[in-house]
């Protein structure tokens, strides 16, 4: 076996369909959705049941920081998968396995940026509004 062949086989392994998932690109938005539902749900119950808003707000702000951290991890992994600095191909328009692999990384990376913006937006009312009025 030549070294070239070996590298190719490793490539095939790396880009194999079994390791890819369409769901992976939605990880960022899923974190956004979870964060959104928790913020809305917990605050709605807090206001309806008269729980202590200050404590809940502090908890949710920490949770928001955690959500942003989670999205950052997803985004970093996606950036590595896109690997644009290495391939120098931001478009991935060809139908090869590695193009599909880099493309999914690119899409996941862009979606994690949008998700991060979404989380920041949804956190703003927690920062700016001080109570249940």
């Amino acid at each position, binding site marked *: 076996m030549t070294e070239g062949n070996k590298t190719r086989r490793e490539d095939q392994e790396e880009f194999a369909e079994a390791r890819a998932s369409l769901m992976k690109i939605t990880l960022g938005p899923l974190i956004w959705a979870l964060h*959104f539902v928790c913020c809305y749900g917990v605050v709605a119950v807090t206001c309806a049941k008269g729980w202590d808003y200050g404590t809940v707000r502090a908890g949710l702000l920490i949770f928001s920081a955690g959500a942003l951290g989670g999205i950052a991890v997803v985004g970093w992994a996606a950036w590595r998968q896109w690997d644009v600095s290495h391939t120098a191909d931001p478009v*991935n328009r*060809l139908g090869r396995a590695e193009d599909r692999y880099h493309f999914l990384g690119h*899409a996941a990376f*862009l979606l994690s940026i949008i998700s991060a913006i*979404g989380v920041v*937006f949804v956190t703003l009312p927690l920062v700016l509004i001080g109570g*249940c009025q």
Partner: protein
Amino acid sequence: MLAEPVARDIAEAQAERLRAAWATPKGWRYVTAVNNTEVGKWYCLTALVFMLLAGVMALIIRLQLAVPENDLVSADRFNQLFTMHGSAMMFLFAVPMFEAISILLLPGMLGARDMPFPRLSAFGYWCFLIGGIFVIGSIFFNVAPRAGWFMYPPLATMDEGPGSDIWLLGLSFIEVASIAAAVELIVGTLKCRPPGMRVNIMPLYAWYVLVVGGMILFAFPPLIAGDFLFELERSFDWPFFDPTRGGDPMLWQHLFWIFGHPEVYIIFLPSIAIAAMVVPTVARRPMFGYSWIVLSAVGTGFLSFGLWVHHMFTTGLPSISLGFFSAASEAVVIPTGIQIFAFLATLLVGRVRMTLPMLWISGALAIFTMGGLTGVMLALAPFDFQAHDTYFIVAHLHYTLFGGMVFPVIAGVYYFFPFIQKRLMSERLGRWAFWLTFSGFNLCFLPMHLTGLLGMPRRVYTYPTGLGWDWLNLISTVGAFVIAAGFSVFVWDLIRPKHRQPQIPRNPWDAGTLEWTHDVPEEAWGVRSIPHVSTRYPLWDEPQMLDRIDAGRYYLPDAQEGKRETLVTSVIDAVPVQVQRVTGPTWITLWAAGFTGGAFIFPTFHWYPPAILCGVLAICCIIGWLWTATAQVPEADSKDAGLGLSLPTYAAGPASVGWWAMWITMLGDATAFASLVFGFFFYWTASPDFPPAGALHPEARLVGLAALAFAANWALTVGARWLNRRSHVGGARLCLIVAPLAAAGGATALVWSVLSLDPTSHVYPAIHWALAVWVAVHAGAGVIMQFYCLAGSIFGKLTPRYDADIWNVSLFWHFVTLSALVTCAVLGLAPEAL
């Protein structure tokens, strides 16, 4: 191998066999056709007719409002008109039109012969036709729904007459058809792409279909759950939305808008997907920022679920809650804007030809951007407080829907007409139609911003003079008729006879995607041979592809067994995995749709015996259809798919399209169930007397028994699948005999546990009843499925080797068992916890 010529006589014999297998029925049997090209056309035309009817209603509305203190129609008739205008435009035009267009175009774009479940498409269409005629016909009998298209209780629940029931049952029936289409389209996109079409090179339209199909699965079920509760209140007086007995009208608003806002994007995204097909063609270059469009479609799909409360800004929710939804509403502008900029960038760097479709797309972008800008204003709660329920909203929503849906769809009609009808529409009439519609639209709706800011509320049937609204309304009415003139030109161009037109070129726009390999004159087989695809715009990049398709050099060039077949490929990389036999023409779908219609329509008039009879007959038809046409034992395990590739003819479990359809359907079903559970906790949050003092609770021991029985049923069902696969057929059959008993026992115990509770007394017992009924009905369906498998095993349809049915049934039971156990937890444990 690709370059090897196929002998002429062999190729002709192959083509003849394909033609015979895919022949469209002639004469009066034409209605039995299930081919996507026929069903798609009927679907589009039906949606168009409903749209024109709803448009006529809009004209009457505008005539009534043309001058102050007009008495052209009565207040009651006016209420029916605006309710039906909104309901028909949304449920009978906008959503079905997406499904119709996608069923018509998607197989062509994917180089597939047909959708994976053609009879399901046909069934969905007939349901849509029956339900649509029923709903829209009510206005001719003066009994149409009249509480507004969002049917807010208590107005809608207390409304006398059948109007609200017609809305609820008729549209629930159509929603079932919508979900059927969503399942079909998702599975089609994931599993029926041509070999080599990995996810990074599929047409952008397919990405949008995937996103929108997913959105339908999560958006429609909350409305179905809401309809279920609403109809239980209307028919049996269970007080879900009646505040005097612990109910809450706000729950309806939440469930309606969890559906209603994503629905706006369900309408918008597929239409803008048409723009994503037209723009690269007219710019004569690949789409600039393919990944960015994917980002935008997926991102919008997600964010659009965080907007629903912006329809409820004035309902008195805490301002911090409004803040979350206001923020998300502003955030969704980012992905929406990105796709518009990607289109503009493609046009800027390309060499644009201002064809007729592009003219309509330009109009769409201009109008939609205006609607988007007022959307940004309305997403700010304090502004919304001022403009809420005024004509400013009417202007905003028409700008988004005309710009986001009507204009792109008409662009699509001009663009795809040669593909659909093998004729061209008139350039001159098209420009007339565009300028009339575009100017009429702005004349009608631009002044409404001002009318609204001057304080004119929506839904008023007349208004006094002297408030500054008179001339604005008159201008709007004139504009409405100019739009109508534009539509008349368009419709005439669409339906006028075109026999004398010379044969059109095959790819008149010089586009790069697969649908333009279609045959002119038309052939019903979809594609002569299924190509191997390796780029995003195969017709631009591989000039020899068309000849090879025509010569039958690619996959499945033949129909040796005379059966309809298409290729199934893997989800991510489109590796060929199976030759799928698809179903052909039949009457059974019409019967099934007719009886399903009866089951939904008779309860409107409280005629329950014929409704139950229809329900039973519908189930019989569907069982007959499945038994005779799906998961058939093939004559050979595998067959030659062309190009030296041998593929299996049968698949079970996750490898089969049926398993995916079940998975996706049950995801939607689980969402509806989750909405009911959400309702339970909503009442607990919103109401201080939930549960009310001294309330009876479900019988805890019976609830526990039900949980055990459902768990046992699940183990037996999964056990049957396991034993069957290992050739212990006798053991499997035994499991399939005991499992239904366990399921029926579980359902009985669950209903029994709430039997002593009076559902009309308070919402607390009512929601317990609703959950128990939901699970019992699903268990009933599951029992039928188990007996179906048992019969299959006895009559040789289900064998250890060919076991797709039992895989699908156990998947169904995974979901139903989960919802049964959650119900048991809520019924048994919540009284302790609350």
